[in-house]
């Protein structure tokens, strides 16, 4: 992960709105990127993330708002005059040109002399490890190789900002992990600021140093991946990222360090008090992996513990997912890491089990 960003906004998206015939695709988005960071826009299809990316690239014009790159407003500038480059989801390699000519396309447009272009292309191909395929045409390459050509091509003009549209989307699972590491490594090596757009949570969390969750044209939360995962700002964000148990709760009492809440099944939930949140707390969010399951009741069964019946048990390789049926009828999702190959002590299907967690595990939400 890249280091924490310092002050100053390298890219500022200011109150950007995009409406298509009355429907708001992007609804007053504000973002700030600092130089050198990899920033991810995460959201499901139709949330407006791609529209926003295209506006930064110059393929769409915002209905209103400003896009400031190093203080300079990009709105109104055509794509070929913006000091940024995009790596397309479909790669969009020119089929009639070789790998070498594809990578050098942008440099030729910049008026670089041929000898210089050749050296630079060589260096780029070496960076992405495709030197021996320089003369091939795109249709003669595998998906992963095509992606590397697309990356080299987008880095050729040394852009100030690199835009990635679903960078790992077209790759299969195994290739995704290797490519992800390589991609981040190359981006950090080059030192370019990066804005990526994806619907894949894993992609966003593993690649980006900061991310934003987007839904229906609006930014819901901005933060580092762990901030968003561990301290979601709303039920929606908590539910959107990973798995979560959302328990309706009522506040019983508060101290400086703790909330005391009650839920339908758990009479006493003790949660560490985080930074001040606006509004009345009404929900406890609990991630499945933070819950311990055991056959015996914990030492203090009154606090952060509940007894239930194992309704579902799904083996997922590295962990096992449990659905615990609670007295009120609600279901608590728990995930246990399979620490031991021969896990005899884990609760079985249909058995009664105690679920318990620490006071730092739950997050109190107000909306």
């Amino acid at each position, binding site marked *: 992960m890249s280091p924490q960003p310092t002050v100053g906004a390298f890219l500022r998206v200011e109150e950007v709105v995009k409406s298509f015939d009355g429907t708001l695709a992007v609804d007053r988005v504000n973002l700030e990127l600092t130089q050198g960071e990899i920033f991810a826009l995460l959201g499901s299809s*139709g949330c407006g993330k*791609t529209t926003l990316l295209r506006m930064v690239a110059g393929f769409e014009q915002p209905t209103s708002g400003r896009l400031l790159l190093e203080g300079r407003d990009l709105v109104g500038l055509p*794509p070929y005059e913006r000091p940024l480059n*995009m790596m397309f989801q479909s790669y969009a390699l*020119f089929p009639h040109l070789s790998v070498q000519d594809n990578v050098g396309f942008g440099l030729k447009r910049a008026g670089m002399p041929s000898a210089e272009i050749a050296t630079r292309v060589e260096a780029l191909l070496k960076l992405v490890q495709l030197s021996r395929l320089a003369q091939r045409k795109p249709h003669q390459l595998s998906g992963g190789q095509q992606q590397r050509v697309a990356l080299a091509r987008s880095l050729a*003009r040394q852009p100030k900002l690199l835009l990635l549209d*679903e960078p790992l989307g077209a790759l299969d699972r195994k290739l995704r992990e290797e490519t992800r590491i390589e991609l981040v490594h190359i981006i950090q090596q080059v030192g370019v600021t990066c804005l990526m757009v994806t619907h894949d949570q894993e992609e966003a969390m593993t690649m980006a140093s900061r991310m934003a969750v987007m839904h229906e044209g609006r930014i819901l939360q901005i933060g580092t991946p762990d901030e968003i995962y561990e301290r979601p700002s709303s039920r929606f964000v908590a539910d959107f990222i990973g798995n979560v148990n959302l328990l309706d709760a009522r506040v019983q009492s508060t101290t400086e360090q703790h909330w005391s809440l009650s839920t339908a099944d758990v009479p006493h939930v003790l949660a560490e008090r985080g930074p001040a949140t606006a509004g009345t707390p009404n929900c406890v969010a609990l991630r499945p992996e933070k819950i311990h399951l055991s056959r015996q009741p914990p030492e203090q069964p009154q606090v952060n513990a509940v007894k239930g019946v194992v309704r579902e048990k799904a083996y997922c390789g590295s962990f096992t997912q449990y659905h615990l049926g609670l007295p009120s009828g609600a279901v608590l999702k728990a995930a246990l890491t399979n620490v031991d190959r021969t896990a005899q002590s884990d609760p079985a299907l249909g058995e009664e089990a105690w679920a318990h967690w620490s006071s730092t595990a739950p997050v109190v939400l107000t909306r």
Partner: protein
Amino acid sequence: MSTTHPTNNAPTPAHKRVRTGRGGRWVVGVPYVWLVAFFLLPFIVVLKISVSEMGTVHPKDLLVWKDGGLQVMGDLGHFAAMAADPIYLGSALRSVQYAAITTVLCLAIGYPFAYFMARARKSVQPLLLMLVMLPFWISFLLRAYAWKGLLSPEGWAHDLIVGLGLDTLMAWLGMIPAPGQLMNTPFSLVVGMVYTYLPFMILPLYGTLSKLDLRLLEAAQDLGATPWVTFWRVTVPMSQAGIIAGSMLVFIPCIGEYVIPELLGGPETLMIGRVIWDELFFNNDWPRASALAVVMILMVIVPLALFRKYQAEAQEGPR
């Protein structure tokens, strides 16, 4: 919003390649049989006549029984005459020349046409296609006659051109022999040919241009190419298949055109089609006419062979 459909850069997977089974071979065989019966065999007949001697009404037989043995009464004199007589050489060159001019003009007019058709709203495109093909609903002969009327001194096209004073410019350029005379000139011939063959250029161009992946144009712009540069560096090279197909569909028939030079052409536009007709019907010289036909076919086969070679190479590559 961008779709997730990738540009088809990957090689065709095995299960998608069409396998020609037994039934498939029969179906493919039918055009072959057709070509053999109606092209190859007639060509051989024409070739045979071109080396025969001419009798009073029909050409003489090639193979005769003479003195108890089979003799070939052949005569390659006509092919020799072709090279010698300036009329034949001239008409052959002129045919290629006018076919080339027509092709270039069809490309110049047809490309923008096809480009904007391909970029029009999807709902409008079928209508535009129909408009391009509408002329075919009327007999081609009638359309040629229509031009005859339009360009004759009574026609309004004539009045328009003369009224604008363009005819003096055209006369100076050699397109017409003298100002005011628009009919039966190189100008009227080319107008007729371009008008007739334009749809044959537009349709293949439209075919390739409508399949153009617009994301490639975006990628080019992202990399610093202005729309003008994108057009010449990406759009045109990628529509190469359409350009060549359209050019072949115009150039090849134009070489052998007879009706349009006959109706709209003049004494300076003598093309090989008319020369063959003259030899066959005026001079009743079947062998000479056949020889000319053979030469014309050879003039067409060279570009055709190049076209096939290009197509074969293109098949190996992306779709």
